[in-house]
C-alpha cells in the first residue's frame, strides 16, 4: 500500500546574510517536493600497486579501495509551487539561510538550508508556478 503526501505543511523561514536581521519566508502552494539526500564523501585510496605490479602488494586487479571520510557532500531540496496572491519575487529568498520543514502524515523533513536558486514562469492558460532549490547544510 502506498503513502500519500496530501495534507502536508511546508514552511521556510530564513534570514539574509549580513549584520542586519532581515527575515524572509516562503509563500506559495506547494505541489511537489523532492529531497536529494547528501552523498557520503568518499576518498579513493586505490594504490598504484594493484595487481602486484609494484612491490608485490595484495590488492587484486579491478578492485578499487574507497574509504568514506565520515563527511557528507551535496544534498538539496527542490520545492515546486503554485504562486499565491501576495507571494513576492522568489529572488528575494535566494541567498537566505534558515529552517525548512515539510510535515505530512507520512513524511517529515526538517533541515537547515541555504536558498540556492529560484525560478518562476507564467504561461497562457496556466497558473503561475515556480521552483526553489535549497542546499542542505544540516547533515545530521
Amino acid at each position: 500500500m502506498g503513502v500519500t503526501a496530501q495534507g502536508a505543511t511546508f514552511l521556510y523561514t530564513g534570514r539574509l546574510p549580513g549584520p542586519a536581521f532581515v527575515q524572509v519566508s516562503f509563500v506559495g502552494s506547494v505541489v511537489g517536493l523532492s529531497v536529494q539526500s547528501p552523498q557520503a564523501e568518499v576518498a579513493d585510496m586505490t594504490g598504484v600497486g594493484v595487481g602486484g605490479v609494484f612491490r608485490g602488494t595484495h590488492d587484486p586487479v579491478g578492485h578499487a579501495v574507497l574509504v568514506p571520510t565520515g563527511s557528507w557532500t551535496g544534498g538539496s531540496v527542490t520545492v515546486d509551487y503554485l504562486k499565491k496572491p501576495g507571494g513576492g519575487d522568489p529572488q528575494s529568498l535566494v541567498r537566505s539561510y534558515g529552517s525548512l520543514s515539510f510535515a505530512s502524515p507520512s513524511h517529515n523533513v526538517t533541515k537547515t538550508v541555504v536558498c540556492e536558486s529560484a525560478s518562476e514562469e507564467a504561461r497562457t492558460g496556466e497558473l503561475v508556478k515556480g521552483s526553489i532549490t535549497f542546499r542542505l547544510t544540516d547533515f545530521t
Partner: protein
Amino acid sequence: MAVSAQGLTFTFAGSTLTVTSVQVSDSQDLLDATHLGIAPNGKREFVGGFATNREVQIDYISSTILTAGISGAMSVSGPFAISGTATCSAASIGGSVGDFVRGSATFRLA
C-alpha cells in the same frame, strides 16, 4: 415548477427557423490548483481559466441551408431568451425517404 419548451423561437441573420430542438451550453477551462496542503480524501481545487464562448446547437425542419463561418445576429426567445452576435461553427442538412428536410447547426456567441 417545470416549464414547457413550446414557444421557443430561433432567429439568425434575420431568418426565423422552424426549430425542433434548441440547446445552449457554456463551458470554462478550469485550472487545477490542487496542492499538497489539501488533506487526504480532500477535494481538488480549481480556479477559473479561459471562458469558452457560449454555444447554441439547434435542430430544425426547413430547406434553408446554413453555412459554417457566417456571422449574424442570433436570438432565442420564448420560455428562455438569449441573444447576441453569433458565428455558425457547424451546419448540416439532409433528407430521407418519407421525412422532412432536416438540418442542424451549431453557433458560437461572441
